[in-house]
């Protein structure tokens, strides 16, 4: 019998033979991977390849059916509140909700505050800095319904930053956003990684992976390849994915496949 999986020194995330099922459908088959502190890992793969499932499992939103994982030295649900920040695709919420940009980013602080604790000056400073990090401070008072897709994505990322997490998970943050937003997000990710933050991000944008990520994971329900972008490109697995995504014309989003697999978007207990 193998020893239980633990995170090695410097490892933020480790998984071994991870299997995740939605009812009768197996979304992830035996995924094994590691992510270091101060490293950005990109996950690429065709629609329905399990990219979002992997992120949600690492976030503790889904429980693995088999295999093991270690996130920040523990199981995701046993971590102190605020440890993991998960940035979903912007379609995940109702943007007509009565809230301003500031209100949504301030939610990032909620997991850090007990009910009797006031929203203090430091919390306000953290929210303001998070807004500045995504160039949204001038729109703090705007209602969220009146934002472009790129601005909504930046609000989500700012909320994650305001949480002051130890692990950042991003689900296709570059899908459907303008070039300026993409560059803002790329610079932000690189600066967080330079500060030691582990970042795991799914993407459909196969052209700039070398500028975003230190390592790349090619997923198609199982891990086809993992390594530096150059290594993965040389391995041939990446070419297969590239071919697949181009052939099937699914470069934009895997939202449909995600919907088909997720019987219930929230966690089942």
């Amino acid at each position, binding site marked *: 019998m193998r020893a239980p999986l633990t995170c090695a020194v410097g490892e933020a995330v480790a998984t071994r033979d991870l299997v995740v099922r939605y009812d009768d459908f197996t979304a992830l088959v035996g995924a094994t991977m590691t992510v270091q502190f101060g490293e950005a890992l990109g996950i690429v793969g065709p629609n329905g390849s399990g990219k979002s499932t992997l992120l949600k499992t690492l*976030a*503790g*939103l889904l429980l693995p059916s088999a295999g093991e994982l270690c996130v920040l030295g523990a199981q995701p649900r046993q*971590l*102190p*509140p*605020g*440890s*993991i*920040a*998960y*940035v*979903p695709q912007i379609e*995940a*919420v*109702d943007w007509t*909700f*009565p*809230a*301003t940009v500031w*209100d*949504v980013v301030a*939610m*990032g602080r*909620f*997991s850090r*505050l007990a*009910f009797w604790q006031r929203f203090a000056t430091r919390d306000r400073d953290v929210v303001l800095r998070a807004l500045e990090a995504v160039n949204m401070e001038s729109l703090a008072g705007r*209602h969220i*319904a009146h934002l472009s897709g790129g601005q909504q994505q930046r609000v*989500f990322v700012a*909320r994650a930053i305001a*949480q002051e*997490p130890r692990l950042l*998970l991003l689900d296709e943050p570059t899908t459907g956003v303008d070039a300026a937003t993409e560059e803002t997000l790329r610079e932000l990710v690189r600066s967080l990684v330079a500060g030691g933050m582990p970042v795991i991000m799914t993407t459909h944008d196969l052209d700039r992976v070398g500028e975003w990520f230190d390592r790349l994971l090619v997923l198609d329900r199982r891990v086809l390849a993992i390594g530096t972008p150059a290594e993965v490109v040389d391995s041939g697995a990446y070419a297969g994915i590239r071919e697949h995504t181009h052939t099937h014309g699914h470069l934009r989003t895997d939202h449909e496949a995600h919907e088909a697999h997720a*019987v*219930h*978007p*929230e*966690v*089942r*207990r």
Partner: protein
Amino acid sequence: MSFDALVQPFHYAFMQRAFIAALAVGLICSAMGTYVVLRKLSFIGDGIAHASFAGIVIAYLRGANFYIGAAVVAVVTAVGIGFVSRRGRISLDTTIGVLFTGMFALGVFLMSRQRNYAVDLQSFLFGDILAVQPQDLWLILALSIAVAVAIVAMFRGLLYTSFDPVVAQASGIAAPRYEYALLVMVALTIVVALQAVGIVLVAALLVTPAAAAYQLTSRFSPMMLLAALFGAASAVGGLYLSYYVRASSGATIVLVATGLFFAAVAVKYVVRARALSAPQS
């Protein structure tokens, strides 16, 4: 109308109790209604109210206080709806549809087997706030305060999980617990409002003032405060009006709330039209 005529309703002890009950019901229903509207739970509110009829009848048959019977059945139904929708393969509206009609039928069934019952069925269906007894008033106030304390204590968690339950959960906030807590709070709120507006109309008091507030503000806390204000105005104003027009208090309360809703829609329309026609600076 003279001043004496205006304050006449307050001369009677039963009217004083009714006004205090109406104020509590209006405030708490509408504050909770903010979550009901934003989480699209209005069908749940209607369902829990109808299901509680079985509890009222069982309490009556056993000689117990009907609030206790209604509260037990409402809370059990609310938790059951939450559990089945979370665990089961049945959609939420189907679950509610099955549970609430089943429980309501159980109430009617039990009632119909009584050969000579002396309970006024209509007062449960459409409410009779003038019949609030002193002990009923204490129960209404105690439940209202309990729900209000829960709203304050869980404010941030309920807000976050109402907007984005998945991300809230990933951040370490126990979203399922908040969901169950909210359902229990909705159930207790409905029980508080049963005697005021009745089973059939209680969903209106949950939804209409909050929906009116939603027309006029784009932030959560002002929406909740405005909803509570509209709810209190509807309940107290409706009761007052019903005294003079000699109509059903529950129906008058809901009609005042409906009037406020359409007024809010009109205000929103006028403000938007003015904003569009204003010269661009």
